[in-house]
């Protein structure tokens, strides 16, 4: 009897302890793991951490734990490994072009229900070019955050020095050649200042292809489309090569993406094409007047592709955490918040409302260079390669461009072989190519 009552008391105590602690844990805030990369120069990690601190301070029920995961490649590798091991982060910034890979892995969820929920987001306010890489099969999977597009940067002092109008950057390929020739400075055989540099890189080349009239991938929602060996695609690469050997306004050999800002800052070249994400660091570092312009247009007029990273919410983390992740994303992309991010980073604030809201409104009035990328968005299209095996096809395209820049192959040879290799990857990835 007494033994039973002891047991009874014990059971009561245990149950009440469980109830109390259970009750307490229900009031514990949800802690979200947030993976983010930094893809361009500058103290961007500090900026993001700062926003998260502010979010946490204003939200009692949700605490976000920011995890800096390196560059885009490392970040994606970590996210993929985490998804495959069944322990994904809750929310992550990943490349917009990673969309097909993520959907294929069933690693992310569509966001339409959230966009139309009682915590709504005006998705139509986001620029179309950025949304083109964020939607698939009629659903929205990513919310644009650190989005960019390449623009032309030029040295206004050099323009003045050779008698060009510093407010008029080249608007066409012909003008690019013409201005470039005027800007080249020679000391005997040695060129001390080149007219122009475009990196031997898939993202840079893709813009020239668009300007020649060929988007290298699908403008719609076809992950199996790669068009590297069309006449227009070949024309674009032939033009780039001609800048090196025929017009001699661009240095021969490989031109790695990351070395362009250094050449430009040092005055070794008068014009470069680079991401708008480099704007803040260039504004801080160049010892001359910095000009920005649209990418010069080809036979098909102006053209550019977009790039950068979106917010994604992960699958398999439970509805409660997904709801919390949405609250966080929705807070981050508020017009004033994403406008501040645009100022801090140089990325194009991806929604129109941000440009009509402080602090970006005054900043854009003060720093006109910041608006170039925004206005160029009118001519911008979906980023290449938003395809199956995207990273590999990007690399294959890049290798073709490098082979041409180094004089190893002609544009035809290089692009035909790149097309064949891409086709193999597409077929291996489950595409049916009619041919």
């Amino acid at each position, binding site marked *: 009897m007494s033994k039973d009552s002891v047991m009874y008391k014990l059971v009561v105590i245990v149950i009440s302890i469980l109830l109390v602690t259970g009750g307490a844990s229900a009031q514990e805030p949800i802690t979200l793991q947030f993976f983010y990369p930094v893809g361009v120069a500058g103290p961007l990690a500090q900026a993001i951490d700062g926003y998260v601190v502010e979010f946490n301070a204003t939200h009692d029920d949700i605490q976000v734990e920011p995890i800096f995961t390196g560059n885009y490649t490392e970040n994606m590798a970590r996210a993929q490994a985490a998804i495959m091991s069944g322990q994904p982060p809750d929310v992550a910034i990943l490349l917009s072009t990673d969309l097909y890979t993520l959907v294929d892995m069933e690693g992310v969820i569509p966001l339409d229900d959230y966009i139309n929920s009682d915590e709504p987001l005006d998705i139509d306010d986001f620029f179309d070019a950025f949304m083109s890489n964020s939607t698939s099969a009629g659903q929205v999977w990513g919310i644009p955050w650190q989005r960019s597009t390449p623009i032309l940067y030029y040295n206004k002092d050099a323009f003045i020095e050779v008698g060009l109008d510093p407010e008029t950057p080249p608007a066409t390929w012909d003008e690019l050649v013409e201005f470039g020739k005027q800007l080249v400075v020679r000391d005997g055989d040695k060129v001390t200042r080149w007219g122009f540099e475009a990196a031997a890189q898939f993202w840079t080349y893709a813009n020239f292809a668009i300007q020649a009239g060929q988007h290298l991938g699908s403008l719609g929602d076809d992950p199996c489309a790669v068009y590297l060996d069309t006449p227009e695609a070949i024309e674009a690469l032939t033009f780039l090569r001609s800048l090196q050997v025929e017009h001699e306004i661009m240095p021969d*050999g490989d031109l790695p993406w990351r070395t362009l800002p250094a050449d430009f800052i040092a005055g070794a070249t008068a014009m470069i094409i680079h991401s708008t994400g480099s704007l803040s660091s260039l504004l801080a570092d160049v010892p001359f007047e910095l000009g920005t312009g649209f990418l010069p247009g080809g036979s098909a007029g102006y053209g550019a592709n977009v790039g950068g990273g979106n917010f994604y919410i992960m699958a398999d983390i439970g509805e409660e955490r997904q709801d919390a992740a949405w609250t966080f994303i929705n807070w981050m992309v508020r017009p004033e918040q994403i406008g501040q991010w645009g100022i801090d980073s140089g990325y194009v604030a991806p929604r129109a409302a941000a440009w009509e809201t402080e602090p970006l409104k005054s900043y854009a009035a003060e720093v006109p260079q910041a608006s170039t990328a925004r206005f160029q968005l009118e001519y911008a299209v979906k980023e290449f390669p938003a395809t199956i095996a995207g990273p590999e096809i990007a690399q294959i395209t890049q290798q073709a461009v490098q082979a041409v820049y180094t004089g190893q192959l002609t544009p035809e040879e290089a692009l035909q072989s790149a097309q064949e290799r891409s086709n193999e990857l597409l077929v291996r990835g489950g595409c049916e190519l009619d041919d």
Partner: protein
Amino acid sequence: MKSAPTQFDVKQSQGEGRVQVTRSFTLQSAVHSSGAVAYVFLLPSLVFLAVFTLWPIVSVIWSSFRARQGREQVFVALQNYERLFTDPIIQQVLKNTLFYVTAGVGFAVIGGLLLALLLNQGLRNIGFFRFPFLATIALPMVSVASIWLFLYSPRVGLFNEILAGLGLPLSNWLNGRELALPALFVVYLWKQLGYFALFYLAALQALPVDVLEAAKLDGITLWQQLRFIIWPLVSPTTYFVSTISVLGALQQIDHVFVLTTGGPNNATNMSLFYVYEQGFKYFNIGTASAMTVILLAVLMTMAILQFVYLERRVHYD
């Protein structure tokens, strides 16, 4: 603290350390006879070995037979190996790796020995001369590569400034197809040569003085001294250096990252970088594992050869 004697001591102990390693193999039979006690003492190392070496090996072999399908890794038998050998860039990758390995061994042995001979001269303040060659060992490769990146820069770099000053045609260094791999190799060699020389320096200082003195009394030339006395006497070191230089050359990846990321058009893509790209850029874990297994087989063969050879040397001593 005087710097010269300290350096001398370091090399002495390095040399002795190696002798001890070779001797410990002969102790193995003694360890066997004491049985269980020995295993208890070995247990901590065995656990670490199992967790951090053996298990990853088993796991990489396992995943080399699997490939990603959606979210799952499924069994695909030898498909990864088949893909590996039909990948159009694999030949370039293997060619580059082979260049690194052969040039690496050649320069490590010949360059390392010559440098050690120079550094072994009984000059006053020899430590002053030894320091710059040996200091590179202590530098992290990423810092070294970042500095060389500036030196090689075709438009603002030191090397092209020098060429321009001499009125010579400029070079594209890392950005040109022909020079990219050799230029990369120079960085690796600049950093590692002192390391190889260190082993030779230790070997030279352990040479029996009486043999050299007897030879000198017989009026031997420098070349003969090198060819018939020093070269045979340092042969265990030569074998050791060639082994670690092969391993070192195969393991190079950090300066590839910093300097070229494998470009232009795979001119500097090497085995380990290939594994990285396949595994972590394209997430073809299966292909990356297959390449790793092949690398592992090569490295283990090297290690076994060295083990057998060293054991034989000990018996002949």
